[in-house]
């Protein structure tokens, strides 16, 4: 039954890089058709955790289940099938720097859809205008600002309208009105298509707004998970310090 409710499950994930133990037994369920926001300290392993969900990083120990299937020991072919259901925005966008903006956003369409070039052009223009970028189709990624690159990455992640989208800090580096617009875009997309979204964010207000669930990663474990209200009223001092952005408390800042 859990596989029905949860589209992704991380079970007791451990991951170390050299002697640095980044994840120390992460247990996290991502409910289907909802938005889950992951918060946590900078350098705490959020991006590493997100990459586990799509098989880019393999855990030292533990299981990653997508629709109840363990993807850790899956072969190339199976993993490809699973990945077709995903879209992902990387923290640094990871645009193809040899291609212009249009070709970047069109890439998943050209690979996995049967649309004609004319239709592709139309979809690309539509997705770009959704993220507030028009008229930059012919620019190269190196000619864009950081925030523009991020939004192109966002457009690329949603072009195929996949079932599951992973967003690594979609609003970091954007001005406040634009952040609000991107949060709304994520919310609208999620609701319109009923997809599952996983969002890493440092923007607490945005997290309350887009998230059905919020999970906090701290010291390599998920220490709290719940609705925005539950997180806001959490009894944990760590969570309280984090969401209120206080320098004093149990979290050693510097």
């Amino acid at each position, binding site marked *: 039954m859990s596989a029905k409710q949860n589209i992704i499950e991380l079970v007791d994930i451990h991951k170390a890089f050299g002697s640095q133990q980044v994840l120390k037994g992460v247990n996290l369920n991502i409910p289907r058709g909802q938005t889950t926001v992951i918060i946590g300290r900078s350098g705490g392993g959020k991006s590493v955790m997100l990459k586990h969900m799509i*098989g880019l990083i393999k855990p030292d120990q533990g299981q990653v289940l997508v629709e109840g299937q363990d993807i850790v020991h899956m072969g190339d072919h199976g993993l490809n099938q699973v990945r*077709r259901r995903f879209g992902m925005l990387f923290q*640094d966008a990871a*645009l193809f*720097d040899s291609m212009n903006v249009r070709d970047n956003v069109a890439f998943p369409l050209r690979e996995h859809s049967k649309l004609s070039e004319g239709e592709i052009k139309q979809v690309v223009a539509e997705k770009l205008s959704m993220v507030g970028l028009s008229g930059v189709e012919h620019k190269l990624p190196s000619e864009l600002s950081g925030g523009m690159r991020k939004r192109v990455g966002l457009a690329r992640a949603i072009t195929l309208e996949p079932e599951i989208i992973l967003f690594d800090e979609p609003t970091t580096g954007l001005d406040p009105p634009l952040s609000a617009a991107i949060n709304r875009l994520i919310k609208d997309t999620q609701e319109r298509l009923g997809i599952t979204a996983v969002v890493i964010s440092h923007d607490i207000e945005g997290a309350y707004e887009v998230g059905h669930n919020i999970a906090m990663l701290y010291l390599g474990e998920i220490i709290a998970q719940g609705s925005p209200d539950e997180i806001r009223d959490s009894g944990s001092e760590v969570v309280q310090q984090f969401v209120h952005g206080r320098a004093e408390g149990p979290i050693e800042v510097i």
Partner: protein
Amino acid sequence: MRLLRPFEYVGAKFLAMLDEAGELLLLFMQTVLWLFRPPFRFKVLFKQLEFVGVGSINVTLLTGAFTGGVFALQSYHGFSLFGAESLVGSTVALALTRELGPVLTSLMVTGRAGSAMAAELGTMRVTEQVDALYVMAVNPVQYLVVPRVLAGIAMLPILTIIADFVGIVGSYVVGVHLLGINHGIFISKIVEYLEFSDISMGMTKAAFFGLILSMVGCYKGFYTTGGAEGVGRATTQAVVLASVLILASDYVLTAIMF
């Protein structure tokens, strides 16, 4: 214990080398596997054919012309000591088609295209573009490595033929126009001694060197770690390793073929 240190060092180096050979072989096997799986990406292939082939024509022309010219000059000095100037043309032609054409062309293309492959794939690796391909369910070996290796194998023989031809023209210019060897004798000796198998075996070598330089360039790029510095390291290592492998395998191939 101190006395064992050098052995430990050599042992560790040796193991690292075996490791590397294993990884390279594994990537090669994956490349062969993905070569035969659809989709076939003609667009990226043509881009690489153009980059490796058309892009290397200038450097090939220069290498071929000067090698042929200088070789004519040198051999003329030797041959004139015992009055065998008439053999300059055929000597240059044989050396070019069998050895200098394929080897020098491949070394130049290694410096130009092999290094670029390592740098490009290395940059894509450290900026997560390779991961982005995985995420979009596109296999990076198929998308990035296969077209480059095919371009290497296909283009090096063609570049070699060009280098052979230009080199012979260069030697003709030096030999006939500058040094005054008789035009008819120069040509007839080439026709007499040069066989088709010399050319075809030179081209076979070149195809093999094309495989080496593209495979090594892609391998070094594909497994780059450590940011911009890592990309620089990968690029240098790709050129060094590919050059060494080309020279070493040239000996083996020559021993087998001729």
